[in-house]
Structures are given as structure tokens and as C-alpha cells.
């Protein structure tokens, strides 16, 4: 536990002083600010069935695919390339402590990005208030969306950490993370659009498809529905990814 705390403090400090983190933060806030700006504009022109906050959160996959890989790609790949991971493993710190410290550091950074994003809706609310026909600020959608991001973030970040563990190239790690997250985000929607009901031999896919509907989870969180199934999915997925990452680090030679 002492090693974990030391490593976590080191990782957070390294992340804070890394140009990579600041570049990712700049990209994230520019992207999310722009998306939210357009959503607010759209709502100000004509009444919509959604609020700007809901619309922006429904585009969570954009920063997920473009920004998250930038945060996690260097965590292990760079250390393996430089050989510093081997040096780290000669200390009494366990591979599990190293993996968890890097994971938690990346998750905290990712969470901080999203928490920073909430400033945009708050600023909009502060500037425009509840004037007009359309509510431009929706605190329940904001909190629900943020909860979804933080909970699903465990799995998404752990996938990024796992991808970084299995290669010495940070670029390849980012690419692997992008592909895996794309598949994970799209697979639920793709399954929902398949005519599974009419294909008897695909009937067994109905349950998994129901579990993997990422956008449905966002909807549930935003609506304040607390379903334990996505929580179990994200928790087990996170543990599986991090377990594999520990094995990859232990077997790195």
C-alpha cells in the first residue's frame, strides 16, 4: 500500500508536469467547448427535444476516442521503451501496485477533464439563466452524464492502460486503445440495430447486446436510473483489464 501511494503521487506529479497531459487537456476542452457552444446555439434558435448538456454528453465518444488514448498511451509503452519499467520492477514494489497507480492517475486526470467541462454549462447558466422557452442548463442531466463518464471511465481507462502494457510504441498503444474503445462503444448500438429477433440462431446475443448498449447506459444515468448491470459490467471489465495488465507487466521480459 505504501508503494502504491508513493507511485500514485509520482504518477500524478509526472502527469501534471507532462506536456502530453496539457496538450490532451487543451484538445479536450476545445472540442467539448465547441460542441457545447453549437448545442447552445441550436437550442437558442428553435426549441429542441434535448438540452445542450444532453446533446454534448451524447457525443462523449468523440473525446473518448480522440483524447483518452493520448492520456494512457505513454503510461507503460514509454517506460518499456526506455527500460525504466525493468528498473522499477527491481524494487519491492509489485507489478499490481505499479499498474493500479498508473491506472488511478490516468482515471483521475480523465475525470478532472470532464469536471472541468462542467464549467461550460455553468457559465452558460450564469450568463443566460433560465430565460427563453428552452432550458439551456439541465443540472440533473449534467450530474447523471458526469456519473456515467466517471463510472464508465474506469473501464475505458483500464483498456488504455492494458493497451499501453502490451507494446513499446506509444503510437501503437494509442491506436489499439482507439480501436478497442470504438468497438466497445459501437458494438452495443450495432447489435441493437441487428434484426436479432428474426434470427433464431442469434437469440443468445440478445442478453449481451442489452448489457453492452453504452448509449443506453448514458441515458439511464442521465435519467437518474440506477441499474446495477452496467455497474457490474464496468467493474468486472476494469478488473479484467487491469488483471491482464498486471500479467503483461510481470511477463514483460
Amino acid at each position, binding site marked *: 500500500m*505504501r*508503494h502504491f501511494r*508513493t*507511485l500514485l503521487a*509520482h504518477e500524478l506529479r*509526472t502527469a501534471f*508536469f*507532462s506536456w502530453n497531459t496539457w496538450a490532451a487537456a487543451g484538445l479536450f476542452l476545445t472540442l467539448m467547448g465547441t460542441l457545447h457552444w453549437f448545442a447552445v446555439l441550436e437550442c437558442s434558435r428553435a426549441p429542441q427535444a434535448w438540452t445542450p448538456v444532453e446533446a454534448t454528453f451524447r457525443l462523449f465518444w468523440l473525446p473518448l476516442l480522440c483524447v483518452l488514448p493520448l492520456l494512457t498511451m505513454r503510461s507503460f509503452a514509454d517506460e518499456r521503451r*526506455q*527500460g*525504466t519499467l*525493468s*528498473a*522499477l*520492477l*527491481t*524494487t*519491492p*514494489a*509489485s507489478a499490481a501496485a505499479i499498474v493500479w497507480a498508473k491506472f488511478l492517475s490516468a482515471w483521475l486526470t480523465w475525470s478532472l477533464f470532464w469536471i472541468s467541462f462542467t464549467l461550460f454549462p455553468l457559465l452558460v447558466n450564469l450568463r443566460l439563466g433560465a430565460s427563453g422557452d428552452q432550458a439551456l442548463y439541465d443540472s440533473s442531466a449534467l450530474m447523471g452524464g458526469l456519473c456515467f463518464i466517471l463510472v464508465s471511465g474506469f473501464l475505458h481507462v483500464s483498456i488504455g492502460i492494458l493497451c499501453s502494457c502490451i507494446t513499446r510504441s506509444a503510437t501503437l498503444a494509442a491506436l489499439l486503445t482507439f480501436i478497442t474503445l470504438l468497438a466497445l462503444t459501437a458494438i452495443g448500438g450495432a447489435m441493437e440495430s441487428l434484426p436479432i429477433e428474426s434470427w433464431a440462431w442469434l437469440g443468445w446475443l440478445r442478453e449481451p447486446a442489452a448489457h453492452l448498449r453504452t448509449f443506453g447506459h448514458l441515458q439511464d444515468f442521465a435519467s437518474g436510473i440506477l441499474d446495477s448491470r452496467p455497474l457490474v459490467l464496468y467493474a468486472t471489465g476494469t478488473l479484467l483489464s487491469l488483471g491482464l495488465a498486471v500479467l503483461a507487466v510481470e511477463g514483460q*521480459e
Partner: protein
Amino acid sequence: MPEVDPQPTAAVVAEMLTKRYGSLTAIENLSFSVAPGEIVGFLGPNGAGKSTTMRILAGTMAGTSGRASIWGESVALNPAAAKRHMAYMPENNPLPEDLRVEEYLTLRARLKDVPSTLVDERVAKVMEDCDLTRRAKGRLIGQLSKGFKQRVGIADALLAEPKVVILDEPTIGLDPHQILGIRDLIRSLRGKMAVLISSHILHEVEQVCDKVVIINRGKLVAQGRTEDLRRELFPNAVFNLITQATAAELKVLIAMHESAANVEVIGSADANWNKLKVTLQMHSPLREGLASLMISAGMSLREISEEHYGLEDIFLAATRRATTEGGRI
């Protein structure tokens, strides 16, 4: 009462260590030991398996079979305990370039279980011991010269005052001044901790080490004190001399005292002076009295010197013997 580790008879034990990569055998049935406080040179040609052995001992690589232990703790079965007694500086000494020297050493001290109250003190001490305090303390590691980076690596190895230090090519790429500095530093560890050091610079190993372990193609070919290996591999004493006596005259003279001696001509110096090579048994009494014997026999003697076999000769002879005998343990 603080817990005191009982001192084992061997600080490092490698017993029948084998590492295979598919069909390639990197090391095979390698056995040797390092006593507490002893400095041992680990020698072998490129690709002999030195780094592989050191990585297995350091716990960063698993062996295929065999047993490795550090201070009595099995590296495979109890890696955390073994690592607590050991520090390892890998070849090329990888360091995070974006950290400052003091920050890096502080982090490493914490990871190596140095008590919190002692971290600052230990970091200051190793920086002083490794001559880092004045010129490198607050600098980024990436900005340091190769020599200072090596010093940082060695400072890191000494931080937790381990019982065993494993250094893989600690002087590679250093200039002669830096090599001298590192050598003195390693020499200062004698008696305090067991040191296993690999190096291509045999002269350096000879200067520093109490014992050597020589491997070739993954197999042990010789181990022991340099003097013992010298006696084992070079059982004869060889003298080069310049004299007016002929080889035949000298042979007759020596044969009166030692029948197994050999005299051969290796050239002529100037007019009437011959260059001869005399081979005696190592324990022959003539080894001490050859010059006085010749002079008392009225032979003119201008120069006499005994050939000295350095570690380089021992290394070459041991690896050659292993090649001809097909390996030796």
C-alpha cells in the same frame, strides 16, 4: 527490538540456472555463489549470458529451471524479500530523463522501503558518496553526462544499503577518469556488501574483484580467486632472458636441478646475446634462484623477467579450454 537478518553463508546463490528461449539456450546449469562482503567479477564474451543471469538474479526475468537466491531468499518464490536485500543496475542504466537527480533518488528510496525519516539523509549520503551533490543534485537526469548518469545508477543501487549489489557493465562508455572514480567507489563497498559486477574491461575487474566467475556460451568455464585460476590454468612459470649462454648450455645447467624444465630460443638480441625462454614448474625451487644459478655458473645475464598472466590471459585460456573440452563446470 529491531529485526536482525541472520547472515547466510552465501549472499548470492545460483544453482543449476538454465534459461531457454525456445530452442536457444542462453544459460545452462550455471552454478556459482558470492559470499557476503565479497566483490565478484562476472566475465564472458558478448552473448555469453551474463546479462540474462543477472536479470534472473535480480528477479526481472524468470529462469527456465534452477534456483537463484539472494541473502537466503528465493528470487522466484519470495521475490519481494529477495528484492529488499538486493539492488540491481541493469546494462545501459535506464533512467527517467525528465526527473531531477534528487527527486529520482527520493522516489527510489521510498520504493525501496527506506524508512520515511531516513529518506532525506540516505539520499544526501549516496549523492555525496557518488560525487553528485555539487554538480548534479538539482539537474534533470536527461541533461547529465554518461558518467554522471552511471553515478546516479550506482547511487540508486546503494540507497537502501542492500546486502547485495548487482552491476551490469557499470563502466561501459565511461572515460578513464570516470572509470577510476567508479572503480574506487566499488572498491569502497568491499566488506560492506556483496557485489557482483560484469565488465568487458578485464583489467578493471582484476583491480577490483576478489573472485571471478567466467562463463562462455551460457556455461560456467571457471570460477575462483584470480591467483588460484592462474595456478590452475598456467601451471608453469615462464622466464624470458637475454644471456650469452646458448640454449643447450642453459638446458644442461638447469637439468641438474630440474629435469622437467624446457629451454627454447626465441631470437637473438645483439652479437653473442641470445633471447631464451625457460619454462619451469610453478613450484620449482629454480623459480626463485634461476638468475643466481646462472651467474654462479659464470653465464652472463643481461635481462631476466617472469611472464605475468593477467586476467585477460586467464579469461582467454579458460574460454579456450572450455571450447576444446566442450564446456567445464
